[in-house]
């Protein structure tokens, strides 16, 4: 029975099944579990106790602070730097061959799995003065720094890892967006006497808005839900004073390592609400929904 009326439902059936079995059902369980104490498979309803414990839990606030700080700082570096690199690549000046080699090299970090990238950065940011980063500092007469042993040092290492791993991808996003801007815009502007810098801010940036919105949205999501980068850098879920602990890391610690599923579910609910609220606000402010509806 291949009728046109029935066919669409068969086409989307796999999504409907996935939605129900792997998203709605676990999501409902998350909300339910967050109101329960789960011990050895026995669940007892305890109302909002988990949320109260969460509110008074200093480690949770620390994890939330770490995740938020990481999100804000990665947006602060992973948008301007790739933007400048993309603008350099997009300029008509310079050797195409050098640019091609550069573009390929910027891809190498993205091809490196986060696990391997984390292992490499952990071993470059060692506290010993023979680690690569401390050697470079030593060359300039500074250091050695005890990188992962202290909060700022660990944060710098984490941000360098993120910059290394994601700058190339963001650069390619921006470059693709820039190449879609008609060259007539720039020609008209330069006839009017606009400098390159003026052109960048008055033509490139406004025309890149969809790309900028997209990259910011995935950075919000990726920043708040970050786990693996920190987990690999610190060689596990434990770090001095929990300086590397993220919200997902705490969810993993409470749920799996300490087997407190109810509490972990509450952490998950808070994370969900937070990401949805920030992302939906951001997309509404940038008018993305209006555009999607007007299609």
């Amino acid at each position: 029975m291949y009728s046109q009326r029935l066919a669409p439902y068969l086409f989307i059936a796999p999504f409907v099944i996935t939605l129900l079995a792997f998203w709605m059902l676990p999501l409902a369980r998350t909300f339910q579990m967050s109101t329960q104490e789960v011990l050895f498979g026995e669940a007892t309803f305890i109302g909002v106790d988990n949320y109260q414990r969460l509110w008074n839990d200093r480690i949770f606030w620390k994890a939330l602070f770490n995740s938020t700080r990481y999100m804000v700082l990665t947006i602060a570096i992973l948008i301007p730097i790739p933007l400048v690199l993309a603008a350099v690549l997009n300029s008509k000046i310079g050797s195409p061959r050098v640019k091609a080699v550069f573009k390929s090299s910027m891809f190498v970090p993205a091809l490196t799995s986060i696990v391997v990238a984390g292992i490499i950065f952990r071993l470059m940011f060692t506290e010993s003065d023979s680690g690569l980063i401390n050697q470079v500092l030593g060359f300039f007469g500074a250091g050695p720094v005890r990188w992962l042993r202290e909060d700022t040092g660990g944060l710098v290492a984490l941000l360098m890892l993120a910059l290394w791993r994601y700058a190339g991808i963001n650069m390619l996003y921006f470059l693709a967006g820039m190449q879609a801007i008609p060259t007539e815009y720039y020609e008209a502007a330069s006839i009017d006497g606009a400098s390159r810098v003026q052109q960048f801010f008055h033509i490139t940036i406004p025309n890149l808005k969809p790309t900028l919105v997209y990259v910011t949205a995935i950075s919000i999501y990726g920043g708040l839900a970050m786990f693996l980068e920190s987990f690999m850098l610190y060689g596990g879920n434990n770090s001095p004073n929990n300086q590397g602990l993220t919200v997902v890391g705490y969810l993993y610690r409470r749920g799996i390592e300490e087997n407190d599923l109810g509490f972990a579910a509450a952490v998950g609910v808070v994370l969900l609400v937070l990401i949805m609220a920030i992302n939906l606000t951001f997309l509404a402010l940038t008018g993305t929904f209006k555009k999607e509806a007007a299609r």
Partner: protein
Amino acid sequence: MSADQRVHAKYALPRGLHAAVQTGFLVVVTLIVLVPVAAIFVGTFQDGNVVIRKGLSLDIDLGSLSLDNYVMLFTDSGMYFRWFANSIVLTVVQVAGTLLVSSFVAYGFAMYDFKGKNAMFIAVLLLMTVPFEIMMLPLFVMVNDVGLADSYSVIVLPFLAASVTIFYFRQYFLGIPKDLLEAGRMDGATEFGIFFKLVVPITKPAFAAMAILNAMVIWNNFLWPLLVLRSSEKFTLPIGLNTLLTPYASNYELLIVGSFVSLLPVLVLFLLFQRYFVAGMTAGALKG
């Protein structure tokens, strides 16, 4: 005088010097970006326990370099290549399944009008902003309840209808003229026949791009396999490498050389299919 030259006339730097500065800048950034890979490459020739203690660097002490780590990697009876093979098989199977199922679903959204379509499509959009980590624990409990722990099917099944991939395919399919479908129907093709015989062949670039994007995500998949997989002969490469990093491990030689060798197949594929990699990894934002 072209517009570009006229802009240049406003600059103090002559064109040639500007190009030289730019080239110098790009070369320096390229070298910095490649340093971490160079550092682990150098590390593969050193004693793993020393590397763990002193860290990676670009120091090359010719006297202490050896191929021991490589010899050990290829002769050791350990699990490394087992994990490697697991990762490859899992990635290939999951990518193929995701492309098939997600393109199928996207086609339904792109080509038909039906009751409930808008609500379902909003669900696709919403799922793109819900982190899987939130579902992870209850899904893990459910998986254990039905006795499916430690199986690959649990890793693959939740992600076959992947929202980002559905969204991308839908955008792509929307560009196909409806006349083509009508022509197919006139010729007596079934709805599924039209999809597989008419639509799939003309949308190969979309499949190539999504294959790359999904392969990168799946090859890196960590937290969910870490929860689900119990027996070490089923581990994937990231999970296996992680077990070598724990403070109780004594296989640091394998950790360094194994990490480096795991990069090679991806780099080779990239060199062969660079065009598709660029298209795949920037697929998300092209049609904003």
